[in-house]
C-alpha cells in the first residue's frame, strides 16, 4: 500500500512535469556539450600537451567526462530537491492538499524521490549520449555509470529534501549551493585528481559523497573499476542516501502533521 501511494504522488509530479519537460531536455543536452567542449576539448589540449601521467595516462577529456557526469547528477539532485519541495509546502501548498487525501507524509517524500530518480536517470542518459558523441568513453562499462550517477544524485537528493521540507526561508538554499555544492563541484576530483590537493585536506574530499560518485563513474568509464573499490563507493553512497531517506520520513511527518 505504501508503494502504491508513493506512485500516486509520482503521478502528480509527472502531471506538473508535462509543462516543463522541453526546457529540461535542452539544458540536459546543453550542459554536457558546453562543459565537455570548453573544458574537455579546449582546456584538455593544454593539459594533454603537458603530459597525462597524473591523470593515469588517459586524455583530459576521458578523465573529465565521467567526473562531470557525477557532478551533473549532484546538480540535478540539488535543483529537484530544494525549490520544488519548499514551494510545495510554502507557496503552492500542494503538499497540504495531498495530506487531506489517503496519502501520508512519507508517501509524498517517496513520491518526490521517485520523480527525482527519474529526472536523474534522464539527465544522466542524455549526458552519456553526449559523452559518447565526444568520444569521451573508453570502456563499455560506461553503461554502468548510469546507475552510478543516479545513485550519486540520490545521495544528495534524499538528505537535501529532508532538509528542504523543514526550511523556513529559501535563503538556506543559496547557502547550501555556495558553501556546499560549488566547493564539492570544484574540489571532489571532477576537474583534477584529489591527489593534487594538499595532504591535510584530502580526507575532506574522501568523505564527500561526490568524490565517491566521481571515482565510481570514472573507473567504470575508463574500464579500470575493481569489484572491491566499486562496492565500497556504492556502499558509501547507499548509506548516505539511506540516512537521508530515514531523516526525510521524519522531517516530512513533523512538518505536515502539526
Amino acid at each position, binding site marked *: *500500500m505504501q508503494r*502504491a*501511494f508513493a506512485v*500516486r*504522488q509520482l*503521478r*502528480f509530479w509527472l*502531471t*506538473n512535469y508535462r*509543462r516543463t519537460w522541453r526546457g529540461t531536455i535542452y539544458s540536459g543536452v546543453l550542459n554536457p556539450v558546453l562543459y565537455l567542449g570548453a573544458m574537455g576539448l579546449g582546456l584538455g589540449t593544454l593539459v594533454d600537451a603537458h603530459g597525462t601521467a597524473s591523470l593515469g595516462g588517459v586524455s583530459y577529456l576521458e578523465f573529465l567526462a565521467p567526473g562531470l557526469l557525477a557532478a551533473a547528477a549532484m546538480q540535478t539532485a540539488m535543483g529537484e530537491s530544494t525549490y520544488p519541495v519548499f514551494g510545495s509546502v510554502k507557496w*503552492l*501548498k*500542494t503538499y*497540504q*492538499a*495531498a*495530506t*487531506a*487525501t*489517503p*496519502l*501520508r507524509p512519507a508517501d509524498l517524500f517517496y513520491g518526490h524521490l521517485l520523480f527525482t530518480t527519474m529526472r536523474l536517470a534522464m539527465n544522466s542518459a542524455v549526458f552519456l549520449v553526449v559523452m559518447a558523441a565526444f568520444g569521451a568513453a573508453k570502456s563499455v562499462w560506461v553503461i554502468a555509470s548510469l546507475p552510478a550517477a543516479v545513485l550519486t544524485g540520490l545521495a544528495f537528493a534524499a538528505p537535501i529534501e529532508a532538509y528542504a521540507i523543514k526550511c523556513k526561508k529559501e535563503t538556506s538554499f543559496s547557502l547550501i549551493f555556495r558553501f556546499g555544492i560549488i566547493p564539492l563541484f570544484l574540489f571532489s576530483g571532477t576537474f583534477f585528481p584529489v591527489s593534487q590537493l594538499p595532504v591535510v585536506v584530502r580526507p575532506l574530499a574522501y568523505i564527500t559523497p561526490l568524490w565517491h560518485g566521481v571515482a565510481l563513474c570514472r573507473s567504470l568509464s575508463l574500464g579500470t573499476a575493481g569489484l572491491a573499490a566499486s562496492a565500497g563507493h556504492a556502499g558509501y553512497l547507499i548509506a548516505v542516501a539511506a540516512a537521508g531517506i530515514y531523516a526525510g520520513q521524519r522531517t516530512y511527518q513533523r512538518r*505536515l*502533521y*502539526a
Partner: protein
Amino acid sequence: MVTGVADQDMLIRARGLTKAFGQFTAVDGIDFELSRGQVFGFLGPNGAGKSSTMRMIGCVSPPSGGELTIFGLNPVTDGPSIRARLGVVPQEDTLDVELTVRENLLVYGRYFGLRRDVIKERTARLLDFVQLSERADDEVEPLSGGMKRRLTIARSLISEPEILLLDEPTTGLDPQARHVVWDRLYRLKQQGVTLVLTTHYMDEAEQLCDRLVVMDRGKIAAQGSPRELITRYSTPEVLELRFALDEHEQAAEKLADVPAARIEVLADRILLYTDDGDVALAAAAAHGLEPVTSLIRRSTLEDVFLRLTGRRLED
C-alpha cells in the same frame, strides 16, 4: 459484539479531546458526536480551537489527549482509510494554481486512486454543480476568490466523501460570493451529505447547521440546534439603543430600571434582552431617554455568544 444501526450512523465521536502546542492548549478536553446526515457546526471567534479540531478530524494533527474515533477508526493509526472517506475544504486555498481547473480535479482524484474515466465523469458533474464548467480548461491562478473556493468544494467532492469538512468556507469572500457558496452548501445538505463546518459568522451557522457547538478558548461553551441555543441563552427579542457619546453611560444607568431580562452595554450601543421590544422601548421613553436610533430585532447566535463569553464573535 452487536453493532446496531445507531453505531453505524455515529460518524465521529470525541471524548475529552485535547490538542496542545507546547504550553498552549488549543483544544481543551471537548466532547461531541456527529451522526450521519447532520450539518454540524463549530461556531466561535478566531483562536477558539475550531481549526485545530478540524485538523484532528482530518487526521493531519494527532490529538494530544482524550479519545477521537472517526467511522469507528483511530485517526492516528488508520489515517489513510479515514481520509479516503473524507472530503476537506481547508481554510486556506491549496489549489495547484499552475494547473487548470480540470487538472486540479484530475490530480486530486488520482490521489484517491480513482480511474481516469470515473474522474472525467465526476468532473463534468461537479464543475456544473459549482458553476465552473466554462472555466474547466483555464488555469486556476486568475480565478476570483469565490471561484477558487467553489473549485475547492468541487475538488473535495471528487471522491464522493461520506463527511465533508469545511474550515471557514466563506471567510475572505465578498457578500455575493458568500451567498453563492452558501447556496451550494445548502444543496449538498438537501442531498443528505454530512457536513462539518467551522465558522465565525453567526448567519452562516444559523442558516446551515442542524447542530452547533459554540467554542471559546478551546472549550465548548454550549451545544444544541441554533433555535435551542437562542431559546436557552437569549430572549425572543432584543432592543438595540444608540445614544450620543456623552449620554451613553448615563443612559445605561437609567436603563437599569427598565424591565429587561438582561442588559449588555457595548462600546457603541446598549442591548436590552426582553420578551417584548416595544414594551421595553416605551419604558425607556417613560424614563426620559431619547436614543439617537433604536432597533427591535430577533435574538441571534451573536447574542448567545455574547451571553456565554461576554465577547462578540466577529471582532
